[in-house]
C-alpha cells in the first residue's frame, strides 16, 4: 500500500485507508482511483499527486 501526496495542499491519499465517504473503499490502489477524482481539500487534479515516501 502506498501514499500519494497532493502537490498543491499536502493532502495525503493513503491506499490503505481510501476515502470511504467519497465511495473509494479502503485498499483502493491509486491507479484504480477514477481520473476524474480531485483532491478533497483543494480540488487539484489526480495528476497533481505524487508518491510519498513512507519510512
Amino acid at each position, binding site marked *: 500500500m502506498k501514499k500519494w501526496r497532493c502537490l498543491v495542499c499536502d493532502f495525503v491519499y493513503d491506499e490503505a485507508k481510501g476515502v470511504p465517504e467519497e465511495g473509494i473503499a479502503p485498499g483502493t490502489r491509486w491507479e484504480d482511483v477514477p481520473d476524474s477524482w*480531485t483532491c478533497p*481539500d483543494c*480540488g*487539484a*487534479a489526480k495528476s497533481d499527486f505524487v508518491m510519498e515516501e513512507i519510512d
Partner: protein
Amino acid sequence: MTTATLSAPAWTDKKRYLWLLGIVVMGLPLYGYGLYLWTGLSLFFWTTPVIVYTLIPLFDRLIGEDESNPPDGIMAALAQEKYYRYVVFAAIPAQYLSFIGGTYLAVRGDLVWYQWLGLLVSVGMTSGLAINIGHELGHQTSKLERWLAKIALAPVMYGHFYVEHNRGHHVRVATPEDPATSRFGESFYEFLPRCVYGSIKSAWEIEKQRLEKQGKSVWSIENDNLQAWAITVALFAAVTAWLGWWALPFMIVQGAYGGSLLEVVNYLEHYGLRRQRKADGSYERCQPHHSWNSNHTATNIFLYHLQRHSDHHANPTRSFQTLRNFEGVPRLPNGYAGMIVVAYLPWLWFRVMDPKVVQHFGGDMSKANIKPSIRDRILAKYGSATA
C-alpha cells in the same frame, strides 16, 4: 504518432508575444523617471499608478474581452513550452531593477516630496504586481520555480504567501474560515487587516504542523516562512548598508502598499461566494462558480490570466498560458485593475457587486458568505429562501 499533430489545424496563441509586456510593466517606475529626466515634468513619477489604475481599466473597456481557449489537443504541448516559463522568469530581474533603482533614487535622488511619494507608490506597485509572479511560480512543482517564487515575494515582504496561498487559501477558499475570501457586506478596509493578520497566522500554523509531524521545531531552517522572510531581511539589510538608513522606511512602506495591492485583488476574487456544506459537515469541492472571473484582455495580460480564476482553483498547477474561460461562471463587469479602484470606494463596490451576488445565488442569500454582524439583517431583507 508525432506526424498526426501536423495535420491538426494550426492554432497560434494570440497573446504569445503580449506576455512579454509582463516584463515591460515591471520596469515602469524607471521609465517614469526617464520621462521625468526628458521632460522635467514631476508628474511622470506617477506613471505606474496612472497606468494601472486608469489606463489599463480604460483599455479593458475599449479592447473588451477575449473568451477564446486553446484547443484541448494542444494543451499538453502548450503547458510544456519553455518560452512561457522564461517570460515569467525574465520579469524578476526587471522587478529587482525597479526595486533597487527606485530605492536608490528615493535616497540619493534629491527628490521633492511629491516626486518621492510618486516613486514610492510606483515601486510599491511593481512589488505588489510581482506577488502575481510569485503566485504563478509558487504553484509550479520544480525546485527552481519554487525558489524564484520566494525571491519574487521578498521585496514586498510577503514570503508567507508562498505557504498560505497553496496550503491555506486553496483548501479553504470560499468559506468563512478563509482569511483571503471576502464576505458580503465587508468593505475592503475591514477585509484588509483581517486578511493580513489571518494569512500570517495561518501560514505560521501550517508550517508548524508540517514540521512537528517530522519531529522538528517550527523555528527549523526548513520552515518555508522563515526561509522566505530571511530573503527579505537579507535584501533590506544589504540595501540599507549600501544606501543608509533612509532606504529602510522607503522599502518597508512600498512593501506595505504592495501587499495591500495583493489583498485588494484577493478581496474581489471570491467576494460573497461560499461553498456549501455536505451532509457530513465538510465543504463541497471548490467549483468554477466559487470565483469571480474576467476575460478582459488588458488586465489578463499583465496579470498572466489570473482572472481566469475558476480554472485556476479547479486546476491549481495549470500554468497561465493554458488557463481557460468557463461558461456560466461569476463574472466581473470590468477587469481586476478597474475593479480594485471600485473596491477602494466601498459605497460604489456594494452598489456594483451586491446585486451581482444576490443574483448569483438566485436571491437565496442563505447560501452566501455574509459578514456575521449583518447576516440576520441580510437574510431578513432577502428572505432565506425565495424559491
